[in-house]
C-alpha cells in the first residue's frame, strides 16, 4: 500500500533511487522555485511589467510558480502520487473546481465595484 513509492518526478525525467533521495530532490526543486520568486520580486524586470489577460505578466509567473510548488508539495510530500486515481481526483478536482469558481466570481465583482467607483458611480454611460 503506502510502502511503495513512485520515484520519478518531471514525467519520468528524473528518477530517484530511494524515497529519501526523492524527498531531498523535491526540497531542492522547491527551494529553487522560491529563490527565483524572491529574485523576480526584488528586481521586477521591466519586460514582465506588461499586462497579460488583465494582470501583470510578473504576477502570472508568480501564480504559476506557486501552483507548481503546491503540486510538488501535494504530490510528493503528501504522497498524492502514490494514492489511487479515485482518491486523487476526489480531492484535487473538487477543490480546484470550487476554488476557481469562487475566485472568478469574487474578483469579477471586485473589479466591477472598482469601475463603478472610478467612473463616479455611473454603471453605464450611454
Amino acid at each position, binding site marked *: 500500500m503506502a510502502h511503495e513509492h513512485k520515484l520519478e518526478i518531471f514525467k519520468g525525467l528524473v528518477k530517484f533511487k530511494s524515497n529519501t533521495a526523492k524527498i531531498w530532490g523535491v526540497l531542492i526543486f522547491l527551494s529553487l522555485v522560491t529563490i527565483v520568486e524572491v529574485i523576480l520580486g526584488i528586481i521586477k524586470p521591466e519586460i514582465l511589467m506588461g499586462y497579460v489577460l488583465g494582470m501583470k505578466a510578473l504576477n502570472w509567473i508568480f*501564480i504559476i510558480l506557486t501552483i507548481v510548488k*503546491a503540486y510538488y508539495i501535494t504530490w510528493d510530500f503528501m*504522497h498524492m502520487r502514490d494514492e489511487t486515481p479515485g*482518491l486523487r481526483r476526489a480531492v484535487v478536482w473538487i477543490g480546484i473546481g470550487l476554488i476557481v469558481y469562487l475566485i472568478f466570481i469574487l474578483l469579477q465583482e471586485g*473589479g466591477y465595484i*472598482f469601475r463603478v467607483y472610478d467612473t463616479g458611480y455611473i454603471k453605464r454611460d450611454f
Partner: protein
Amino acid sequence: MSTAVVEGKTWGGANEPLKASYGKMMMWFFIVSDALTFSGFLAAYGFSRFKFIDAWPIADEVFTHFPFLHGVNAPMYYVAFMTFILIMSSVTMVLAVDAGHHLNKGKVTIYMFLTVIGGIIFLGSQAWEWNTFIKGEYGAVQTKGGNILQFGEYVEQDGEQVFKRIAVKDFAVVDTHKERTAHESKNGIWFQSEGALPAFDVNEIYKGLEAHENILVRTHYIDEETGDKIVLSRDHSLKALKNNGTLYVEGANLHVNEYGAPLFADFFFFITGFHGFHVLSGVIINIIIFFNVLLGTYERRKSYEMVEKVGLYWHFVDLVWVFVFTFFYLV
C-alpha cells in the same frame, strides 16, 4: 458467472476501492474543507484588492525589515526565510513518515523533534513580523476620507531621483503648550475615558512640513503608468495636509494602517493569524505524536500511520503558506 457472484464481490464488504484507511481519508476530507476555508479568505482579500486596485499598499514597501539589520531596506528576504523554514520542516516531517514505514523508531523520533522545532521557529518569526508591522516605522497622517498621507523627499540614488520616506517624528515641530490632554475618567464624566492620544497632532506635523522645504506628501494612490505611489507637489502637499489631515497614525492595527488602506492590515492580521493558528495547533499535535513515538505506542502497534496523518496536516499548513506568501508578499 452469474451476476449475483459479481455483486457479492463488489458490494459484499471488505472492498477498499481507494486503498486508504478511514483515518487517512478523513484527514483528506478535512484538508479539502480547510482548503476551501482558506481560499474563501484569500478570495475575499482578492475581492477587496480589486475593489481598491488603485490604492493598495505595495508589499515590498511594507515588509522591508530584517532582524538585527536596522535601516536596511530588505524586502522579502525575511518572508523567504520563513517560507524556507516551513518547507524545511515539511521535509523533516516527510522523512519521519518515511522512517515510520521502515519501523525505525529512533529516526522517527529525531525527525519529529526537528519538525516541532521548525514549527516553533516559524511561529517566532511570525510574531516578530507582526510586531514590526504593528509598530510601524515612519508614521503617516490619515485624512477625513480615510486616505493615507506619507512624507518623504526625493534623493539622488545611482543617478536617479528616488523617493525616500521620512519619519514624522524627525520633522514635526512639537508644540510644548498643547491644550489637548487625554481625557481620563477620574477628571470628568466617570463612565467616559479614551485611549492614548496620537504622538503628534496634525497642526504640529503641518508646521514641521512648512519648515522643511524638501519634504513632500505621498498619497496612497498608485500611478498606473509607473506603478509607484503618486507624490504631490510642494503646494499640493501643504494643501492636502492642511485641508484633509485629521489623525496621526503609526504602524498598523485593525483601525488604521500607516502603509495605506486599513483593509490591507485587517486581511493581513486575519489570514496570517488564521494560518499561524493552524501552525500552532500543528505544533501541539506534533508534540503529542512525538511523545507517543517516544513512549513506543506506534512501535507496539507495528504501524506509524498516525505520523502519516499528522504529516498530511503539517504539509497542508505548508501548502497554505505557499499561497499566503504569493498573495501577500509577491503579487
